């Protein structure tokens, strides 16, 4: 029986070259779907396949690059017919050729629309689109799947999942990079390989990109990180336009020279992309076929990734930010409960600015639908931050969903020594190719002695390896107990870390801050314990990166353990800092002083937009005044002045926003204070805001949001591209009768009108505000809005009027 996976283990394997190049030569016009030829000119497609077979290739690629539901609908073609006929063309060519084992790869190009949150195609829709192609391809008789010229690793994840969950066909994946060394969606080689390595595909590599010369350093990197056989399908040189036709500047011999260089580096599977034809493949096969295979050393580092950033654990101390966990944090709890994603994101950004390498994401609150919220938070965080995430939950479904919709290779937190946990969690880590954190506890609880914790750790590692998780993907947390309650066991934790490190050779994690519960001056206990734990072999503390003293322990440890080579990072961070005592108050000299050397009052700060300083002053003011007094006597008057200056054009938009944001910083402090003292909130009323369906420009809506919030109103922000139904649901669910809709394009004014109609039908007494670059009073009346708002400030006036 023919078995492609066996073949690639022992010998060089050859794909065909370009299809499009031939088709253009034979008269395919610009804009025409090449897939149509599978139906109307089968002979041509078969002839091209046959040329490649005669040149000596092993694998034919079907003419189905764009044969997905979206592109085929556009071209008025049927996906099933196109793919079935494409596979038939390849089969017929193989039959005619009738010489040796040949394979058919179902070609799967990118869908053509980007997946959320970058684009507006749903991940699940991308999955369904690929699933359809794959099922038809398998039924038609293809031997393997080739995801190629992929641009977005998240879309590729949807495709691979569709493959793994619906067929057993081998999966080959290649992505295309530009001259910045990244895909157009920002993925670098290391992130791509890290993600694909353990995700259950069979071959990875690069294709298309720019010229073959430029591909050499990138393929070197693929080989450096890859655990899998590597393939390459470059173009025939760099594209040049001659008489409005694209030509490539490498002759076949030059092409083969570069390919030979890449086989010497360890590439096993070879073929051509744009501009290559059967001559290239013939010469390639002739030169390479009988060469000895070069074995590559397999990389076994512990590494996690996002779509554009990788973090290796175990080379230097890596910090896992602990702040996105509602346990003991009232403000975050409130934000999660009320769907205030902005607060969550700000906490995430803050931790990254404080140099967290990884963020822990925990949304465990009994009143929330945890799996749903987990996915939402992961998507939102990943839409603005590149750090890899640790998905933290006691809810199996939240972990599974989190791992599924995560973009990259995540760290799952956690599994433990209980049978049930091992049986449920490890398969998730295996399926999604994630790293997994094992806690040293089991049905008997957390053992007191280090040795017993080590035994549980060993059990977890063994079980993981048994089901096919590479050992390097397992990390162990030996669990920190509080020194105030279980003083003697603190040292047992440290001993256990040492045992795990030395005997199991896996990386270790600890939730450091637990140690100091119930003791005064917690930071002192925390940082002392951190230093001790690092010395015992801790690789990644889960901690608050906002603690300067703890971060400085990490920085110093990286110097002392020779992780920070030549102390470069340390010197960069600390050479300009004057050490006065242990705690540094960085801004103490400049805080709160204006030009005359006097302190600014809150009003002045707001007008100047001094966002950093306003926090301290608000805290100061709270000692004397209550929050409402501050709002009514200081904040609102300042905003009114700013608004007036804006109307008179004394200041303009960015300055007005700065003032509003300064106010919002102060509000944050005030809200936290109110939450701490009671369960009330500052509530002057709430407005629903949305950028309408099909419109993806939301900067205007976001400006409105900041300004409206600064006047003390709450905003339910539905985001952009919002379905009319969702707007109505949000209004009913929150019992809100006022809504602001934004549209930027003339074409989306139509969807704005539809949204208004639906709102009026369901909530006849709703007040509907509209705004956006293309709107005016006339349009607004025509589509049935209550008010047209020509600016953010104008919106505030309308909201004020409503809530009087």
């Amino acid at each position, binding site marked *: 029986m023919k078995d492609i996976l066996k073949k690639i283990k022992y010998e060089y394997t050859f794909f065909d070259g370009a299809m499009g190049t031939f088709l253009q030569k034979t008269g395919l*016009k*610009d*804009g*025409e779907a090449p897939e149509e030829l599978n139906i109307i000119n089968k002979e041509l497609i078969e002839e091209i396949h046959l040329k490649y077979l005669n040149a000596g290739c092993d694998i034919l690629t079907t003419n189905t690059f764009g044969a997905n539901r979206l592109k085929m609908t*556009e071209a008025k073609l049927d996906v099933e017919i196109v793919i079935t006929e494409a596979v038939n063309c390849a089969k017929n060519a193989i039959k005619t050729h009738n010489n040796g084992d040949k394979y058919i790869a179902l070609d799967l190009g*990118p869908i*053509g*629309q*980007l997946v959320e949150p*970058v*684009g*507006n*195609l749903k991940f699940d829709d991308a999955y369904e689109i690929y699933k359809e192609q794959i099922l038809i391809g398998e039924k038609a008789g293809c031997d393997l799947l080739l995801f190629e*010229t992929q*641009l977005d690793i998240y879309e590729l994840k949807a495709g691979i999942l569709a493959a793994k969950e619906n067929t057993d066909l081998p999966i080959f994946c290649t992505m*295309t990079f*530009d001259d*910045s060394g990244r*895909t*157009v*969606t*920002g993925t670098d080689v290391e992130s791509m390989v890290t993600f694909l390595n353990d995700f259950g595909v069979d071959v990875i590599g690069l294709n*298309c990109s720019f010229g073959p010369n430029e591909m050499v350093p990138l393929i070197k990197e693929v080989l450096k990180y890859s655990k899998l056989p590597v393939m390459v399908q470059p173009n025939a040189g760099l594209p040049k336009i001659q008489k*409005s036709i694209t030509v490539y500047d490498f002759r076949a011999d030059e092409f083969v020279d570069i390919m030979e260089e890449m086989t010497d580096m360890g590439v096993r599977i070879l073929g051509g992309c744009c501009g290559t034809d059967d001559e290239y493949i013939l010469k390639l096969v002739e030169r390479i076929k009988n060469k000895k295979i070069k074995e590559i050393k397999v990389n076994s580092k512990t590494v996690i990734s996002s779509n554009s950033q990788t973090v290796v654990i175990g080379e230097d101390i890596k910090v896992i930010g602990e702040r996105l966990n509602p346990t003991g944090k009232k403000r975050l709890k409130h934000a999660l409960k009320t769907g205030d994603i*902005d607060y969550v*994101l*700000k906490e995430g*950004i803050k931790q990254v600015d404080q140099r967290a390498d990884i963020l822990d994401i925990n949304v465990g609150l009994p009143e929330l639908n945890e799996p749903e919220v987990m996915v939402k938070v992961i998507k939102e965080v990943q*839409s*603005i*931050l590149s750090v890899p995430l640790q998905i933290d939950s006691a809810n199996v479904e939240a972990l599974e969903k989190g791992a599924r919709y995560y973009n990259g290779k995540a760290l799952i937190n956690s599994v433990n020594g209980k049978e049930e946990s091992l049986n449920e969690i490890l398969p998730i880590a295996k399926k999604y190719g994630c790293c997994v954190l094992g806690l040293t506890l089991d049905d008997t609880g957390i053992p007191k002695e280090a040795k017993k914790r080590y035994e549980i750790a060993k059990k977890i590692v063994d079980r993981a390896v048994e089901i096919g998780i590479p050992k390097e993907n397992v990390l162990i947390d030996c669990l920190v107990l509080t020194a105030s309650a279980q003083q003697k066991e603190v040292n047992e934790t440290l001993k256990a870390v040492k045992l795990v490190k030395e005997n199991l050779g896996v990386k270790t994690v600890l939730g450091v801050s637990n140690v100091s519960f119930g003791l005064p001056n917690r930071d002192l206990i925390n940082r002392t314990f951190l230093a001790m734990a690092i010395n015992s072999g801790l690789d990644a503390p889960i901690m608050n990166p906002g603690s300067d003293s703890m971060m400085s322990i990490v920085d110093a440890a990286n110097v002392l353990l020779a992780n920070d080579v030549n102390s470069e990072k340390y010197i960069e961070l600390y050479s300009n800092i004057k050490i006065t005592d242990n705690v540094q108050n960085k801004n103490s000299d400049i805080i709160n002083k204006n030009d005359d050397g006097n302190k600014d009052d809150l009003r002045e700060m707001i007008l100047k*937009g001094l*966002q950093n300083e306003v926090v301290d002053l608000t805290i100061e003011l709270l000692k004397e005044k209550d929050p409402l007094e501050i709002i009514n006597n200081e904040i609102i008057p300042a905003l009114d002045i700013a608004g007036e200056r804006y109307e008179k*054009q004394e*200041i*303009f*938009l*960015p*300055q007005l*926003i*700065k003032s*509003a*944001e300064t106010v919002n910083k102060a509000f944050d402090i005030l809200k936290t204070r109110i939450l701490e003292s009671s369960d009330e909130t500052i509530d002057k009323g709430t407005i629903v805001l949305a950028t309408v*369906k*099909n*419109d*993806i*420009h939301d*900067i205007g809506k*976001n*400006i409105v949001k*900041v300004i409206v919030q600064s006047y003390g109103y709450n905003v339910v922000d539905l985001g952009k*591209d919002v379905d009319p139904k969702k707007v109505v649901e949000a209004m009913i669910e929150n019992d809100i009768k006022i809504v602001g809709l934004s549209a930027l*394009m*003339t*074409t*989306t004014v139509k969807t704005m009108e539809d949204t208004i109609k639906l709102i009026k039908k369901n909530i006849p007494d709703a007040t509907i505000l509209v705004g956006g*670059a*293309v709107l*005016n009073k006339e349009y607004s009346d025509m589509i049935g809005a209550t008010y047209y708002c020509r600016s953010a400030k104008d919106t505030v006036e309308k909201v004020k009027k409503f809530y009087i």
Partner: protein
Amino acid sequence: MSKLIREALIYMGYRKKINELDKEIYNEIVEILNDIKKTANISYITKDFDIENKNECINLLNSNVKFDSKNLSKLLKDSKKITVAAVTLGIQLDKKIKKFTYTDMSKAVIYDACASAIIEEKCDELENMIINNFPEHFLTNRFSPGYGDLELNNQKKIINLLQTEKKIGLTLTSGNLMIPQKSVTFIVGITEVEKCTSKNKCDRCNAKCEFRVKTRK
């Protein structure tokens, strides 16, 4: 640089003279313009086509693409050739602007306006490159899907024609909006007739738009 700053300021609704501008904001704008130029992945693609222009329809020869538009047909009345172009500032810039909307909205607004100014400038540069390909010829004004009567769904044809997804990472949403957001596609006619084109770009457009700049007569 000053032209870019002027343009960015217009997008931010600033109507006064540059020298009356708050120094701090001025510096911030300059810094942001430089940052975008340095860090954005600015890329473009162009392709030339012979055309047939009849019955208010532009037919691109050697392709299956037609544009039905009275306005475009009028613009190209003296052209036998056109260049179709796409420019983008790349997806990372979108991500950056989005991040700033959470941490510093004012900065996000300035980034957004500066990015719009830069992509306009890039389109102007591209026009200069195109004209170099056709010595002794002139260019018509730029025209894009969504202008006049050229429906937005024509964007699909351009994206497909230039293979912008694969070549420069420019894609459309289901509603025919471009991602990355800071992207432009346009059609420009090549003519032998020099037309008096106003230096003020707003004179070439009939949209009622709040950014409109009046030409001083």
